[in-house]
């Protein structure tokens, strides 16, 4: 149980927006610095222009709490075009709520983290399993990695075996179809099977 609560505490602490902003600030900062190493100055113009907007904008959002009132409003408030009359807005709100109830449980289920009783959040697992899919695909070829991915996904989400089997076959067929119709070497890995099978 302690492992579980540690994970829970970590995931509560982990503010996705902060991470996003840090990536943006570091990324754009790096991009800006690098432009001074370009040989051709014209090629630096656009990255500097866009990089500055990202850098300054992300910094403003990151530190919005500490900004003076006026500036803070500018950073946080929505511009709100297409404002309709009140009656209509209520209805729209109701619809959005309904939609949210059906569709966006992602917000509320964060603390329950898995709908199938697994120890990590479903979205996190999905992110991990597709990263693995890509890595295995790189090693042995996407064609061969595809059924493995589908089986791993089905096992985790406790899908019936026969269903997972059918999906694995369909997944393989999709990859095989791309390979034969488009002539893409999906059967080749970069580490194993480098010369392909078909």
């Amino acid at each position, binding site marked *: 149980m302690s492992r579980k609560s540690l994970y829970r505490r970590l995931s509560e602490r982990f503010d996705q927006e902060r991470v996003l902003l840090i990536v943006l600030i570091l990324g754009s900062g790096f991009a800006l610095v690098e432009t001074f190493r370009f040989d051709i100055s014209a090629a630096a113009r656009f990255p500097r222009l866009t990089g500055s907007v990202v850098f300054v904008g992300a910094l403003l959002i990151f530190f919005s709490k500490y900004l003076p009132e006026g500036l803070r409003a500018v950073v946080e408030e929505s511009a709100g075009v297409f404002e309709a009359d009140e009656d209509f807005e209520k209805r729209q709100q109701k619809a959005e709520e309904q939609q949210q109830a059906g569709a966006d*449980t992602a917000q509320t289920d964060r603390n329950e983290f898995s709908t199938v009783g697994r120890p990590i959040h*479903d979205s996190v697992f999905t992110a991990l399993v597709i990263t693995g899919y890509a890595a295995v695909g790189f090693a042995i070829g*996407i064609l061969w990695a595809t059924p493995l991915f589908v089986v791993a996904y089905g096992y985790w989400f406790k899908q019936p075996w026969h269903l997972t089997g059918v999906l694995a076959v369909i*997944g393989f067929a999709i990859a095989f179809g791309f390979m034969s119709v488009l002539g893409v070497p999906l059967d080749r890995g970069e580490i194993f099977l480098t010369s392909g099978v078909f």
Partner: protein
Amino acid sequence: MAFAAFSEALSLVFSWPTPLWVVIGLTLGMIAGALPGIGSSLGMAIILPLTLPLGPINAIILLVSMYSGAMYGGSISAILVNVPGTGGAAATTFDGYPMAKQGRAIDALSMSATASAVGGFLSVITLLLISPILIEAVLLFGSPEYFLMAILGLSMITIVADGSMVKGLVAGAAGLLITTIGIAPNSPELRYTYGSLGLYDGIDFIAALIGMFAIAEMLKLAGQEGGIADGDIDLTGSTLSGVKETLSHPGTIIKSGYIGMFIGAIPGAGATVSNFLAYGESMRSSDDPGSFGNGNPLGVISSEASNNGTIGGSLIPTISFGIPGSGSTAVLLGGLLMHGLRPGPQLFETDLHITYAFLIALLIGNIFIILIGVLVVTRLAKLTLIDTHIIIPMILVLSMVGGYTLRSNWVDVITVLLLGFFGYIMVRKDYSIIAFVLGVVLGPIAEENLMRSLQISGGSYDIFVTKPLSLLITAAIILILVGPYVKPALEKRLA
């Protein structure tokens, strides 16, 4: 010239196997639309790599047909399970779901098909009629104006999108920034490539689209309950009375269709906005506004006529200036570029026959919408009940395989993944994905035209304000970006 291109386009569209692509596109679109959580932009994004061997005309026809089909398809789940398949069908749930609960599901579905088809038909016919004027207008635009239009489009999106404008701007600029990886347009400088040939051409925007739409959405969907809804709605009602009732309200259809078209033509505002506006207008002008929300057929008709009406409008900025107004048109633009078709004068000059061909295909498509909608929709209805754990792995496989297929380049696979994770956080935290995606799609166009403008002017930025047209666009950009902040201050001072 226009006439010759038109007749060439006609013969193109009716030559085998093009009509087949129309039907396949519509059907795929309806499926994507009917599956809540998929929708048109995601569906189109994962189909993009598959259009590689098709050749430009059939590929674009397939994509616009998907767009059109998804606009209708979104109403299927809106009516049957109260969850709109696309944002453009949100207002359809207001009266569509109550109708279904009252045992008139089939009525509502056939109303939606008829209204969608007529609304779509109207707007595309209008677009065809005004295309000669559009051609003249497009020819007035040179390199400086194209750069400015790209910035204008991005600015518009930041004010329309959810979340604060600064967030929108950051998202858009981040999209633009990542396109600067790779060889610079119009100069042989390699940027951020560090000797890797895989990065020479930078980030593939289609990989970005797949990541942002497909992966991000699937990550979100994975965190939700398995089944989408319990299908307790009986498929009862009458097709014929649905079609008849729809056609007995031509005023509503025409008005809603044109509201859709007008809103669609504004970059940044797509069907997501227009269906609410059309619904609101229909309610406002009704004798019995109280019946709306309790199964009034006019609610379904207005919402559905407007979302398909949006298509004709949204194509205007997309094909004239390369500024898509929505996710779906961003993918469509991606398709155009992928097949070597450049928005702007070329689509109205040398490639005019292609432009006409896909407009004609859209027109024909609307007829198929009625046919498919009326004849096989009951089968499509079953789609709304598919478990998400079946959909998710299949979409992920398509995304991964499609991503690699683009250029047989692992950089694209990494792009799909990283931007997928990035997009997931952006959606949750109210950063506009559309602004980001638009940045990625517009980046090369914007930079290339910026550089070229400065080459023409010899380095002077005056070129963006010296001609009346460029001055006008520059003024519009400033107004949009500053307006929302200045307006309240002005009002305060006046009061």
